[in-house]
């Protein structure tokens, strides 16, 4: 009796399994999955264009002294002008000093490197020569390496620094300024990993070998210089966006 019951229960289970199998189920139309809803068109954020302004010297280190003027004060004054003009045009600015503080060359390069800037300007002033002197690092250009040596980190950026120098030079010439281009070995500049230029402004004379007609602390001269540098940086921003367009 018990054996027949067991056989029966097995038969029922097999029958149920057969009936429930897909072969015995009615065919069903596949349910069309709704197409994914179109995402709302959010414009991609514009790449952050950052400029580092490095007012050279400061604090205990006055730099050059030109009578009653000190290089550290002249560079800070130009930095403040540039910062205002750039901020007014929506450009993010990072400065290495905002007051009469001592900042080491290593710290200046650290600030610039952490900012991930598209342009770094080291601002200087001098009594020798005339007009604006622009310098790019004298390191030989090299391919970028995963680990860059601190004192020669700029070597991977020299080519782009030269391109930035070209644009700034055009802007300064357009503003009617006397420009000299060169290469130099400057401790903070050589450690920066961004397109980096040292801008040194001197008294401006109308002609070569003439006494300077415009002095370093002339506010009009500084304003003209700042405007021209901003124009050059705007051209650099446009070029950068053209080279690396956003999706």
């Amino acid at each position: 009796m018990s054996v027949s019951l067991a056989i029966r229960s097995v038969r029922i289970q097999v029958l149920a399994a057969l009936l429930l199998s897909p072969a015995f189920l009615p065919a069903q139309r596949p349910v069309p999955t709704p197409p994914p809803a179109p995402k709302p068109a959010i414009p991609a954020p514009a790449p952050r264009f950052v400029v580092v302004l490095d007012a050279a010297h400061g604090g205990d280190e006055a730099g050059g002294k030109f009578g009653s003027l000190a290089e550290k004060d002249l560079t800070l004054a130009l930095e403040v002008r540039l910062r205002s003009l750039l901020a007014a045009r929506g450009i993010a600015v990072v400065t290495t000093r905002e007051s009469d503080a001592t900042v080491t060359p290593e710290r200046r390069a650290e600030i610039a490197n952490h900012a991930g800037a598209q342009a770094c300007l080291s601002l200087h002033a001098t009594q020798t020569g005339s007009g604006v002197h622009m310098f790019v690092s004298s390191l030989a250009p090299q391919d970028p390496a995963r680990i860059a040596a601190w004192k020669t980190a700029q070597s991977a950026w020299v080519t782009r620094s030269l391109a930035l120098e070209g644009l700034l030079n055009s802007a300064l010439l357009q503003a009617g300024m006397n420009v000299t281009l060169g290469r130099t070995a400057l401790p903070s500049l050589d450690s920066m990993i961004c397109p980096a230029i040292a801008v040194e402004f001197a008294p401006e004379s109308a002609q070569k070998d003439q006494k300077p007609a415009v002095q370093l602390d002339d506010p009009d001269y500084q304003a003209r210089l700042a405007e021209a540098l901003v124009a050059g940086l705007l051209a650099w921003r446009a070029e950068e966006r053209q080279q690396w367009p956003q999706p």
Partner: protein
Amino acid sequence: MAPAMNMVRRVQTWLFILLLVSSAAMGVVLWQLREHAHKRLLAGQDTAPTQAPEISPEERATLLVANDADSSLLPQELTLPLPQDMGSRARVILGKLLDLYALPGATHPVPGGAASIGQVFLLPAVSLNGPLPTVAPAARNPGSGPGSGARGAPSAANPAAAKNARTVAPEGGPQLAVVNLTSAFAAAHPSGIEAETLTVLSICGTLHANLPRVTQVRFLVDGQPRATLAGHADLTRTYLAADAAPSSEAHP
């Protein structure tokens, strides 16, 4: 009692006289020893020339003279007596260059003159692993003066140098010149990137123009490494001299 006291006094007197004579004799002997020693010292420090001074023959030298007005380096030829020893020759030539800068109305005024060069040491050059700063001089805008164009271009010598990590040059090969400047020169040097760079470049170029084996230049100030010349130009680097040297017409 009295004769005994007299006896003691006499002995004391004689003893005093004996000591006095001995002291005087010792004084005389010491004086003579001092004189002997003084004569010996004088004999040892005799600075009188034992040989007639050699007059170096006059030779042509090329100086790369900086000009602040247009940031240029112009070769200038001079004839001056030059010693045969290469280190001394380099020192004399650089001294002449700095003498020009110390003159009133100089195109690149820097006080100090020849006394600013302590020594110049010449060593076998070492290829360093890593990029060296080239010393291409400051260049005017294209078309606005001499020294433009290629002079501002980066050096192609560095990648090749970087391949040979710390390889000492063979005998007769390239040399490293170590120029020891005085701290007075550095302290009095005009501050500014252009002024300092021109001084460094003119020293490097002048060395290479007159001693073609000198391909690298390093700087010391009072025998010690120094961060910058006067707040700007890096003095901790090894400079490649070849790029600052004038073209072939300056060194026939």
